[in-house]
């Protein structure tokens, strides 16, 4: 998230935001009287308490009046709580409970000519958007994507033509603004057909930039945006921000597999010839080998992605896995038999290769056809490598 550089924050009008209710019931998503907004009914009414609590009062700056009644105004400055919430999502905690109410919002003091920006009801998306709108007067139309970001929601058919048409109707946006233009994030284009929106609602879809940070520049010159605004990037920073999520995703199934393998190893060790300390030491070596695989596939592979050899992610992951295993033998492990050393290296390589392959899902340039092709070859190879490595390691545990 780009740090925002907003000015001061005004205290929300106490009469405009009743404590406990938050803004959510004030979103004029459904029929409202001009002066007495009623709580939204229908699909948006089934809010859980945790969803309602997401916007702190500091994120709200009262309301803006419009032809269809008051519209909640959002601060363009992220609070500590917003950032803490975003951090938790990035760490893979409560990732699927980060939705905000769909409907119409405002930033600044928008009038009938102000631009309308469309986004998803994933709070991280809305935060990324509003924090880029400092000193701007605009309407924000939040679609109901079940709390999923624009790109994924467009792919899954929730950031979609039908939902946009529905949201335009329920918010009565045609009465709020005098113009007929909607600025949509470019990455929403796989879900929304611009020409269909025009035919069905009269609103013209303007494809905005890929990144919210380019919005201000785009709005100044929407006819001729810089070509870079139209291209997905995947910079070092953008890759690194995904690492905690990758580790978190690897650890959950990883913990189960590790647990199961360790139980087997313990049984093998007890039945085998080794002493208990040597069995425990060998079991620890197995855990370290897996851990090195996670470092290779979920940390180093994302960081070094453009420079790792091969186009297939499984190859990139196996390469970095081999390198990490080599480093492990040089500086971490004490000297050991060649068989065990090879087994540990194979375990590290297989883990790293699989996790790097899994990273395809987080990148913005891998095609499903390509991933499927890669997996048909890579997955059996990874399973086999892991199998051979594990058996070799278990043999070492057996012999002590």
């Amino acid at each position: 998230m780009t740090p925002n550089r907003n000015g001061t924050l005004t205290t929300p009008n106490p009469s405009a935001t009743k404590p406990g209710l938050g803004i959510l019931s004030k979103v004029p998503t459904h029929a409202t009287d001009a002066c007495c907004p009623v709580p939204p009914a229908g699909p948006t009414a089934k809010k859980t308490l945790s969803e309602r609590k997401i916007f702190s009062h500091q994120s709200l700056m009262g309301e803006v009046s419009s032809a269809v009644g008051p519209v909640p105004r959002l601060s363009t400055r992220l609070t500590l709580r917003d950032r803490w919430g975003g951090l938790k999502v990035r760490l893979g905690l409560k990732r699927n409970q980060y939705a905000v109410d769909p409907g119409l919002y405002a930033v600044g003091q928008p009038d009938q000519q102000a631009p309308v920006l469309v986004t998803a009801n994933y709070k991280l998306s809305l935060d990324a958007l509003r924090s880029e709108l400092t000193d701007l007067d605009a309407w924000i139309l939040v679609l109901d994507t079940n709390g999923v970001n624009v790109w994924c929601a467009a792919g899954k058919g929730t950031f979609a033509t039908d939902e946009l048409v529905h949201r335009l109707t329920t918010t009565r946006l045609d009465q709020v603004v005098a113009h007929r233009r909607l600025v949509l994030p470019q990455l929403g284009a796989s879900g929304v057909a611009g020409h269909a929106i025009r035919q069905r609602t009269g609103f013209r879809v303007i494809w905005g930039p890929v990144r919210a940070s380019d919005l201000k520049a785009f709005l100044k010159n929407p006819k001729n945006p810089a070509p870079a605004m139209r291209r997905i990037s995947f910079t070092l920073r953008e890759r690194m921000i995904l690492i905690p999520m990758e580790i978190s995703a690897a650890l959950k199934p990883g913990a189960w597999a590790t647990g199961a393998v360790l139980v087997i190893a313990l049984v093998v060790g007890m039945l085998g010839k080794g002493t208990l300390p040597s069995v425990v030491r060998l079991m620890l070596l197995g855990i370290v080998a897996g851990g090195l695989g996670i470092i290779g596939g979920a940390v180093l592979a994302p960081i070094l992605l453009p420079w790792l050899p091969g186009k297939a992610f499984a190859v990139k992951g196996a390469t970095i896995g081999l390198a990490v295993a080599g480093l492990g033998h040089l500086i971490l492990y004490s000297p050991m038999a060649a068989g065990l050393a090879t087994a540990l290296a194979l375990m590290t390589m297989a883990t790293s290769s699989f996790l790097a392959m899994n990273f395809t899902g987080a990148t913005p340039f891998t095609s499903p056809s390509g991933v499927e092709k890669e997996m048909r070859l890579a997955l059996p190879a990874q399973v086999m490598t892991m199998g051979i490595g594990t058996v070799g390691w278990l043999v070492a545990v057996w012999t002590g």
Partner: protein
Amino acid sequence: MREMIYLPGVSTLTYDASRCNGCQTCTLVCPQGVFTMEGRQARIHNRDRCMECGACARNCEQNALTVQPGVGCAAYVIQTWIKGKDAACCGDIGCC
């Protein structure tokens, strides 16, 4: 920064140039710069950059473009193998 291109020759993108009316929408919505305009017609400039997101096909009013859209994600592909294409979802396993 090195340009990142995935496996070559796999995209399901098809383009029927005879249907193109030169509206340029595909060049606007494609986040990978696959299309360029050549005179009054779109042209596939770099097919191997295509990640099959489906934005061009959905926004081509002339139906000149088709692509089999999907998510380029290993966890998703595993699920399509197990559960079939419709039930697959990758939201919980760390992609997207």
